[in-house]
């Protein structure tokens, strides 16, 4: 009777949480624990390789959703949210027996168990034979998170296994499907900038290219504007890509670029660094004999530190430093504060719509080549500075007026954190 009652409850629960067309939100918390259970090791791959593959599979989901995953090998099993294991035939107390080599290769239960049929020939990420354990794991984790099968080509949630493409990733719609369940990735950024670099074509022409970077704490993402997403595999630890910068992040990036100057600065606290684009690292000592880091007060007299953020405006060759509700315009020509500064941010960047203004404590000031516009970011919102194009259309717009705010995750997509333990696999 008890068993019958339990079965009745389970089936009722399953029906209630039955996968609607777009799935169901399976977890209400954002940090989930997972474990490869000891009695469920595969006999085909080393345990370390199995765990590496699962760490990568979970990381791929956290790169596109607000969820974070941490491997937990210590807590009592009942505290682990997602348990993974291999087995053959009747396995791991599961009611759905595996069928041997071929056909069914794995299944997932809504309560968080994922089973892999060890009769299948599972292989690691770099192998081109057998069934990719990574791809199957990403698929089954999708089920545990609440995603149903879909037959949409290119989706990781297709029921049949497609021979392992060289390197599969989550496509746009898989990302939106999981964000439909758990929301988009939100959060404040320390700085956002386009990093300009010069390259010579084979014909000797000088080509200037840019890449967009978002930085938060000690991490950064390269944002691929043309693909509306961050680079696969980001975020990455700051010191991996920006040699010599403080490992816990920066306050601001400034690129002074004019006919006479082309200098990149990073600011943190009371110090600043000059960046050597050619060698992709900070200068220890520059051609003027200055050693870095230097004090902000030394390099930019009259500018307080630490600053909230800053950007260089080519229209008037001034660096605008933001601190609190004030902004300091610094002339790189005269190496001094511009007359009449500091002013309040509201005076220099007035709201276009009454009441819609960040006021102060700006997180990032960003000139985007992709959008040809300046943005002020604060928290999860951003304000675009009305440029000549907007003012040509609406002459009444105030100079540097701030257009009504929008949400950052509505313009730049999938900039998601991963758990610190997953940062370096």
């Amino acid at each position, binding site marked *: 009777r008890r*068993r*019958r009652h339990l*079965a*009745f409850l389970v*089936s009722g629960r399953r029906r209630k949480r039955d996968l*609607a*067309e777009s*799935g169901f939100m399976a977890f209400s918390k954002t940090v989930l624990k997972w474990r490869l259970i000891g009695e469920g090791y595969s*006999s*085909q791959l080393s345990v370390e390789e199995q765990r590496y593959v699962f760490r990568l599979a979970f990381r791929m989901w956290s790169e596109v959703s607000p969820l974070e995953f941490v491997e937990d090998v210590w807590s009592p099993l009942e505290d682990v949210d997602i348990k993974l294991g291999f087995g053959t035939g009747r396995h791991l107390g599961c*009611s*759905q027996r*595996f*069928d*041997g*080599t*071929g*056909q*069914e*290769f*794995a*299944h*997932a239960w809504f309560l968080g168990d994922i089973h892999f049929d060890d*009769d*299948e020939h599972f292989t690691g990420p770099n192998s081109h034979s057998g069934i990719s354990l990574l791809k199957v794991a990403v698929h089954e984790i999708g*089920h545990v998170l609440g995603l*149903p*099968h*879909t*037959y*949409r080509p290119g989706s990781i949630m297709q*029921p*049949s*296994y497609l021979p392992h493409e060289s390197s599969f990733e989550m496509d746009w*719609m898989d990302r939106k*499907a999981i964000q*439909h369940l758990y929301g988009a990735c939100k959060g404040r950024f320390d700085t956002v900038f386009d990093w300009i*670099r010069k390259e010579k074509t084979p014909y000797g022409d*000088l*080509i*200037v*290219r840019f890449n967009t970077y978002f930085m938060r704490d000690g991490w950064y993402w*390269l944002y*691929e*504007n*043309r693909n509306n997403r961050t680079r696969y*595999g980001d975020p*990455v630890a700051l010191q*991996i890509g920006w040699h010599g910068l403080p490992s816990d992040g920066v306050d601001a990036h400034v690129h002074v670029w004019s006919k006479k100057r082309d200098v990149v600065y990073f600011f943190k606290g009371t110090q600043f660094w000059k960046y050597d684009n050619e060698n992709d690292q900070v200068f220890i000592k520059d051609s003027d004999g200055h050693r870095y880091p230097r004090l902000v007060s030394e390099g930019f007299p009259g500018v307080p530190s630490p600053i909230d953020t800053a950007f260089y405006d*080519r*229209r008037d060759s001034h660096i605008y430093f933001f601190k609190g509700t004030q902004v300091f315009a610094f002339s790189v020509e005269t190496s001094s504060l511009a007359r009449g500064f500091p002013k309040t941010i509201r005076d220099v960047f007035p709201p276009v719509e009454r009441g819609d203004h960040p006021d102060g404590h700006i997180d990032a000031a960003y000139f985007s*080549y*992709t*959008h*040809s*516009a300046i943005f002020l970011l604060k928290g999860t919102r951003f304000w675009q500075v009305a*440029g*000549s*194009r907007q003012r*040509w259309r609406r002459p009444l717009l105030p100079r540097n007026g701030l257009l009504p705010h929008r949400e950052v995750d509505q313009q730049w997509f999938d900039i998601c954190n991963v758990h610190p333990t997953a940062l370096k696999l």
Partner: protein
Amino acid sequence: EKLFHSRDHSDVQTPQSHRAAVVTDELKAELFLSRYGFIKPVNWEEAQLEDPDSDPDDFLDDLQARIQEGTSVLHSRDKSQIGHHDVFKSQAENRAFISALKEFQRVSGLVVTGVFDEATKEAMNKPRCGVPDQNMDLNAPVEPENNQTDSFDKTDSNNTSDLFSSGNYSEDDLFGFNNTESFLVNISNDTNSNTSMNINNTSVDGEMGNVGGNTNQSGAVR
């Protein structure tokens, strides 16, 4: 390599019984369609009320057993051997089977014939996930128009020429030089479909693909 202990590796040979039963006929096809959600499974509440001793999880075992039994049934020509899972279907069951078969053929991108043909058989024997298919989520979210980004790096050459004239941005916006200082700017279409702007003999190209960026990233295989 699979871990083995016997000299002849017999302990890691996949015993014949460990091979998944290949879907070879309509009976197994029907069981496949039931197992993966194409034929509505029995409603366990009702079934329970009728037959309280049954258990939802036995449903799949029962299917599995039928698959095994189906094999035995199909091997014995003598009809008398057929167990209580008889292979004769009522008209309604047959209709349900055919419509489920068509649904499977449709979502699998096969020709919808309603007949258990070779292509369908092959599709049913492909490796797949054991979670049943639900209602197909075909109206997935749509990708945003890629119009606002990459105006600097439009791959569509029509946009390249109007980079300035269309008001994507003016020199003032981008380089903000006061009117005394302006750069020679002309647009030239790169053959490699990147937008490039020639400023004072330096051509400013579009966003760098993921080849560029911080090439120093160590170990960033993906």
